[in-house]
């Protein structure tokens, strides 16, 4: 079967033949960096237009429909507008932190792309602690938000940032616990191992009910960690106008905006990898003819299909539910999600030890 690995191997071999190993590595890094930034820009554009269209259809309206065919170029036009806007730094802000915060948010989001397997054998860095790396780096995001909130010298921003701090720190527990269930089941922290362990069925089907519970908890925690409604405490525009990015405009605001969408993409990609088999096609046990038929669909389509399905579910949440209050948000985490998650991981451990899973 054709896979990206052939292409990448080809490039790799050619580079090492032509250049010295140090240069070849440097060039590979540059290529990866350019590809990552390109992917970023693409994802930003696609996700923004997707969000606007999804929200429009749920709200019985048409959404953007003037720029390009069916309004598909609207987000490109918006990006252009944001690019040419003045990058304002208000008086009274902490200039260094204020300008640094969007970059930190962006870099944290970018780093998360490294261990994600976009297709079969198509991964930037298949490090052996991939899952741990993702949980660690995704907590960096809160630093950017706190920096932005503090340096803005605005009370709305400060309140938003403080809320966000409390929220992300607590929801990381649940996200971590639900990720751990899959680690326990598959016995590895490496993304490629986790994906191959699902070659005879995805974990959400193989892991009985505990895996489903873990998946639901992961989805809730992921929504909360990316500060999206109904957990958008950090922004909460009807309370805090714009939350931590009240004072931001132009490209700096766009960077926050983009980072939010990249974070959404990454957490959904992680969810798809852990629970829905990543690029692994839908396989059912030893039903060979079915499995072969499924294999004909390219692995990258499987991966992006699953990821965008999860993104759609998160958008569905956002455009249906009212916002929680900050104390209820923490109640939900500490009184509901965390205890359930802890009991759940106990069950999963038992299942894993007794080999009850398929």
């Amino acid at each position, binding site marked *: 079967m054709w896979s990206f690995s052939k292409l990448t191997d080809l490039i790799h071999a050619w580079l090492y033949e032509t250049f010295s190993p140090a240069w070849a590595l440097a060039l590979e890094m540059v290529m990866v960096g350019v590809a990552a930034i390109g992917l970023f820009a693409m994802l930003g554009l696609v996700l923004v237009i997707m969000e606007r269209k*999804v929200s429009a*259809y*749920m*709200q*019985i*309206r*048409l959404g953007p*429909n003037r720029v390009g065919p069916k309004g598909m170029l609207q987000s490109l036009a918006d990006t252009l507008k944001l690019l040419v806007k003045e990058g304002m730094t208000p008086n009274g802000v902490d200039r260094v932190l204020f300008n640094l915060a969007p970059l930190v948010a962006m870099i944290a989001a970018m780093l998360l792309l490294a261990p994600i397997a976009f297709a079969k054998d198509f991964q930037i860095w298949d490090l052996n602690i991939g899952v741990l790396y993702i949980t660690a780096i995704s907590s960096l995001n809160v630093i950017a938000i706190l920096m932005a909130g503090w340096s803005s010298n605005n009370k709305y921003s400060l309140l938003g940032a403080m809320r966000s701090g409390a929220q992300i720190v607590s929801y990381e527990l649940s996200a971590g616990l639900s990720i751990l269930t899959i680690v326990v089941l598959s016995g590895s922290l490496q993304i490629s191992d986790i994906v191959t362990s699902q070659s005879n069925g995805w974990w959400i089907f193989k892991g009985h009910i505990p895996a489903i519970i873990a998946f639901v908890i992961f989805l809730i925690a992921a929504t909360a960690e990316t500060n999206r409604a109904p957990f958008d405490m950090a922004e909460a525009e009807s309370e805090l106008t714009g939350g931590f990015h009240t004072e931001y405009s132009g490209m700096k605001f766009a960077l926050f905006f983009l980072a939010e969408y990249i974070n959404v993409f990454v957490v959904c990609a992680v969810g798809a990898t852990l629970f829905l088999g990543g690029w692994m096609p839908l396989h059912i046990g030893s039903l060979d003819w079915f499995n072969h038929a499924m294999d004909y669909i390219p692995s990258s389509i499987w991966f992006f299909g699953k990821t965008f399905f999860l993104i759609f579910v998160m958008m*569905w*949440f956002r*455009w*249906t*539910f009212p916002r929680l209050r900050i104390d209820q948000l923490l109640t939900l985490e500490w009184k*509901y999600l965390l205890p359930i998650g802890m009991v759940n991981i106990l069950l999963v451990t038992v299942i894993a030890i007794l080999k009850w899973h398929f």
Partner: protein
Amino acid sequence: MFLKDYFNDIAQAVGSLLSGMRRTGYYFTHHKEIITEQYPDNRATLVLPERFRGEVVMPHNGQNEHRCTGCTACELACPNGTIKIVTKFELNAEGKRKKAVDAFVYHLELCTMCNLCIQACPTDAIKMAQSFEHSVYDRSQLTKILNKPESKLQEGVE
């Protein structure tokens, strides 16, 4: 007992959230329900009700004649001073001096479309038009003179 309530709470909450999602999901998949009016595009087919009050106009007939006698009833009826009538004296057919309207000045920027002037008019000289696209770049363009140049009072209107 405590546990039962705890899980009952969760089940009910999740159920209510799912029913909400079912509703938005329904609208997401049923594009027939969309109610957006694509305004500048549907201009040609846009029909406003005949009673819609957009601005005050003075209809003129084919001979460039209107029905305004310059009695200032509308000016008195207007709560905002929207209408100013400038009158002049004309000689009529019998050679008598007669009051006639020189300029019917209408300040659209002050008008609240309350319809009191139309009701006050004894000769039905003015009426409300259905136009509603009034935006201009300069406020002075909103001050209009409703009687056309060289227009005359229609025969038989007193």
